[in-house]
């Protein structure tokens, strides 16, 4: 048996409202909010980045798994599309910060927004093979978005860390399935400040094709149906996509809504589906079944079927819930946003 032993999230405190961004570009704020189902998004402080967010999330995950000695974590993977170094891993800094060094393997992963779920699969493999006792996968981002582009309303900052193991499991991973194709829906070249995307092309052929087929594939593999799940979590680039994916697949809205945090948070890219999953774990009852399908541009999805176990009860409240981070906020204006996002020309830290 392999599953989630501990989980933790972190979201920076700062927020910017859709209205404030729309004000800059003369866009219709209400129209944007309706089409994206996003009200505001999180913004990292100048001294925060994917590394610092990963460390905070990792520390929170360890708080939920107090029996885990960090030295027994045999693998750490950090998935992000905003690693501060292009060469030099985030994972080693996290490993040092949580005192997991030196007996572990570590690597950074990139697969747009689904790098961390790929990291979870790697941990599952190592744990099941008996090579490691615990593995940690972290999804964190301080996502870049070109000013005045639609993505600017969504790209936000946050992260989640998951400890995978066989002992004291709070949610069993019953199975996993992945669906991967080469699709240029969204990309960023080395040296480019901002990603580019294919507009409407990112919808049906990209997001929906992967997410729907992957989820179907998982249920087929496990012999499960939407009715078997109490919650379903999808990657949340905006509020509309997950609702539509649920509808296509036959999941009722009540199963999607509890995890739909993009409205208050924005799209935390590599953190997105994993923070949404944490929102569910914060409230799920023992015996609940959860289906989660991530999505990463390029493109691919990883699906997992999870069964919540007894261990959730003593562990759940050992670390701040997602709701705590959503409520912990302070608004900034576009000028401060520009400074925080390092968008002042020639004047960054």
């Amino acid at each position: 048996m392999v599953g989630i032993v501990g989980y933790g999230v972190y979201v920076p405190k700062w927020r910017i409202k859709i209205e404030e961004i729309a004000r800059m570009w003369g866009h219709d704020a209400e129209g944007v909010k309706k089409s994206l189902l996003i009200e505001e998004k999180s913004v990292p402080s100048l001294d925060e980045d994917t590394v610092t967010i990963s460390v905070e999330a990792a520390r929170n995950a360890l708080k939920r798994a107090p029996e885990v000695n960090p030295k027994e974590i045999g693998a750490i993977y950090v998935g992000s599309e905003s690693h501060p170094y292009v060469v030099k891993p985030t994972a080693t800094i996290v490993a040092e910060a949580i005192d997991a060094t030196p007996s572990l393997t570590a690597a950074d992963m990139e697969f747009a927004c689904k790098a961390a779920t790929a990291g979870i699969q790697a941990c599952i493999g190592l744990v099941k093979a008996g090579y490691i006792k615990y593995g940690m996968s972290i999804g964190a981002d301080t996502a870049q978005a070109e000013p005045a582009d639609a993505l600017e309303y969504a790209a936000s900052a946050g992260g989640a860390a998951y400890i995978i193991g066989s002992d004291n499991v709070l949610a069993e991973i019953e199975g996993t399935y992945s669906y991967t194709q080469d699709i240029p829906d969204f990309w960023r070249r080395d040296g480019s400040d901002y990603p580019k995307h294919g507009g409407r092309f990112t919808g049906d052929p990209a997001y929906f094709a992967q997410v729907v087929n992957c989820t179907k594939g998982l249920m087929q593999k496990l012999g499960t149906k939407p009715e078997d799940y109490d919650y379903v979590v999808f990657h949340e680039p905006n509020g509309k996509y997950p609702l539509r994916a649920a509808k296509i697949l036959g999941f009722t809205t009540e199963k999607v809504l509890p995890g739909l945090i993009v409205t208050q948070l924005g799209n935390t890219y590599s953190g997105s589906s994993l923070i949404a999953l944490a929102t569910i774990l914060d409230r799920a009852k023992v015996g609940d079944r959860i289906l989660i399908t991530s999505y990463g541009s390029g493109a691919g999805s990883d699906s997992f079927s999870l069964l919540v176990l007894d261990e959730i009860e003593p562990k759940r409240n050992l670390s701040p819930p997602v709701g705590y981070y959503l409520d912990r906020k302070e608004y900034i204006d576009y000028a401060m946003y520009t400074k925080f996002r390092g968008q002042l020309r020639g004047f960054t830290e």
Partner: protein
Amino acid sequence: MAMHAVPFHWRRYKERYQLLGTKCENCGTMFFPVRKICPKCRREGKPSTVKLSGRGKVHSFTVIRTPPDGFEVFAPYVIGVIELDEGPKLTSQIVDCSLDEVNIGMPVEVCFRKLRTLGKDGIICYGFKFRPADNSWKPESEKRAQGS
């Protein structure tokens, strides 16, 4: 300056990432930063490295408005002397709050932040800072202990 000397920065990674101090097992005094000798016990002391809790309160603070080289983009920022629960004090930035929210006695907790970079091509220096210890969320065990 010593700034581009990467070993110089690396040498303190563990201490700056994990907030390490020294406890003299002989007299029980806690020190920050790490020391090789207890100034009180001298040779009779038994210094050992410990992880500090990261909880404390603000002993004094200021707002830096004329930053040194490398910190320009962060200004204005709060620098404080923090008194840790275990006893020793240290100097650190106080973040995640507005400049006028900080006050002497305010409870704070440690967080992990970027300190600076050594230029756009240089390494990134990480370490501890402190943020207000939020009173609205506490782990269950603390709540029970406080009887709330």
